[in-house]
């Protein structure tokens, strides 16, 4: 357990993907969830195509954000309840690698499917084809940041695993991702330079990969004390 070279990264990555797959029967459910929400939007908002395509960049990002929020809560709460978090905390290695493993698993189960599926939603909302590549790139980077930041909130709210409280903590921190993410797509739609906002997302990801695991391991230790 967690004694290999990668210090537990791979072990936790595999385990969490396996559990996600067992729990949901299969991994296609997140995909269906995205499609379903995407279907709902035209129902709630009058479905004239030009109106929809105007708000599409923002909607895809709000969707990504909510999917992360809905699922990130369980990142540590089950491990906390069944005692495996204790086992993680007493592993001799650093906490970083297992934590990054768990977050990567979360991204592979939530962020990646959404990225791969986004072209369908884009066509639905009559987004121009030229915006596809920037959209997918921004989603791939941005959802990873969302998972990382969400994990900080999940660690800090552990003893109460509070859905709404977690949302309150992380949503303000999600703002930059949301802004640069939708700005990337919007810029591509408007034919402007979309590399600049995309680069900002990449920078955010770099910062988050370095800082979030620190905050998370501190948070997990504190939570056990709570």
């Amino acid at each position, binding site marked *: 357990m967690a004694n290999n070279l990668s210090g537990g990264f791979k072990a936790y990555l595999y385990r969490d993907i396996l559990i996600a797959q067992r729990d949901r029967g299969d991994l296609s459910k997140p995909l269906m969830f995205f499609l379903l929400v995407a279907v709902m939007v035209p129902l709630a908002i009058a479905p004239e195509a030009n109106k929809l395509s105007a708000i599409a960049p923002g909607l895809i990002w709000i969707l990504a954000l909510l999917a992360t929020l809905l699922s990130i809560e369980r990142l540590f709460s089950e491990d906390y309840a069944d005692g495996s978090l204790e086992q993680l905390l007493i592993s001799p290695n650093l906490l970083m690698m297992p934590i990054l493993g768990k977050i990567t698993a979360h991204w592979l189960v939530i962020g990646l499917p959404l990225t791969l599926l986004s072209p369908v939603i884009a066509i639905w909302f009559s987004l121009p084809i030229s915006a596809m590549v920037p959209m997918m790139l921004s989603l791939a980077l941005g959802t990873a940041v969302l998972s990382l930041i969400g994990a900080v909130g999940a660690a*800090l*709210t552990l003893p*109460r695993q509070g859905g709404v*409280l977690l949302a*309150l903590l992380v949503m*303000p921190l999600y703002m*930059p991702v949301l802004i640069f993410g939708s*700005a990337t797509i919007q810029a591509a739609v408007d034919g402007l330079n979309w590399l600049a906002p995309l680069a900002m997302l990449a920078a*955010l990801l770099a*910062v988050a990969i370095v800082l979030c695991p620190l905050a998370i391991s501190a948070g997990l230790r504190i939570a056990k004390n709570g």
Partner: protein
Amino acid sequence: MNFNLQWTWFHRLGSPRWFYQQTQRWLPWLAVATLALLVTGLVWGLAIAPPDAKQGNSFRIIYLHVPASVVALAGYYIMAISGAVGLIWRIKLSFMLMRSAAPIGAALTFIALVTGAIWGKPTWGTYWVWDARITSMLILLFLYFGVIALRHTYSNNEAADKAGAVLSLVGMVNVPIIYKSVDWWQTLHQPATIKFTGAPSMHPDMFAPLVVMIIGFYSFYSLALILFARAEILRREYRASWVKQLVSNQPAEK
């Protein structure tokens, strides 16, 4: 020996008891200074300073709005830094300061938002506009709320303190990012239709009372922080003998 000296100094600084007793002496002075500054600033700003050429008298709300905004922003850093000090050096007192800073900062942010909205009606014709600075101020309010809310999650004070400190540190990294991104988002989407009147271009007669008010707000902030922290100390240290002694020494009547 030198080392020893350093540590007693450090220890004293971190001791809630020392803080409580020291601030007892500063408090009256600070209160008087705050009152003097605020009264001077308000009278000067509201009554003496000349009315604005374009906005008339409605501009006078600036004397509440700008100081509140400035101190609310600074307050976040004060909170996060005291949290960091607590985490690194395990000083209880700085956690207490952090905890006290959150509601004060939230209140000031709220004042900034409300006065801004009130000012917005005569100047822009609407209470709310999705401007970069305004939006980031709103998000700051939620960051404060998050820190306040998190402490209810923990039954253990120490854990609650540390968790709050971690969250405010994460927020501190994010505040500039949020500010920049919101700013950027604005310029990207639409040309700024509304511009703040630049501060340096202000007339000195209007500017001087503003400076007085800003100093007054900082002074008020320190006063509130000390009072909140003192209450927090009593709440947390109620078991300590010096607190018991303090309470029993109080005259029973009144």
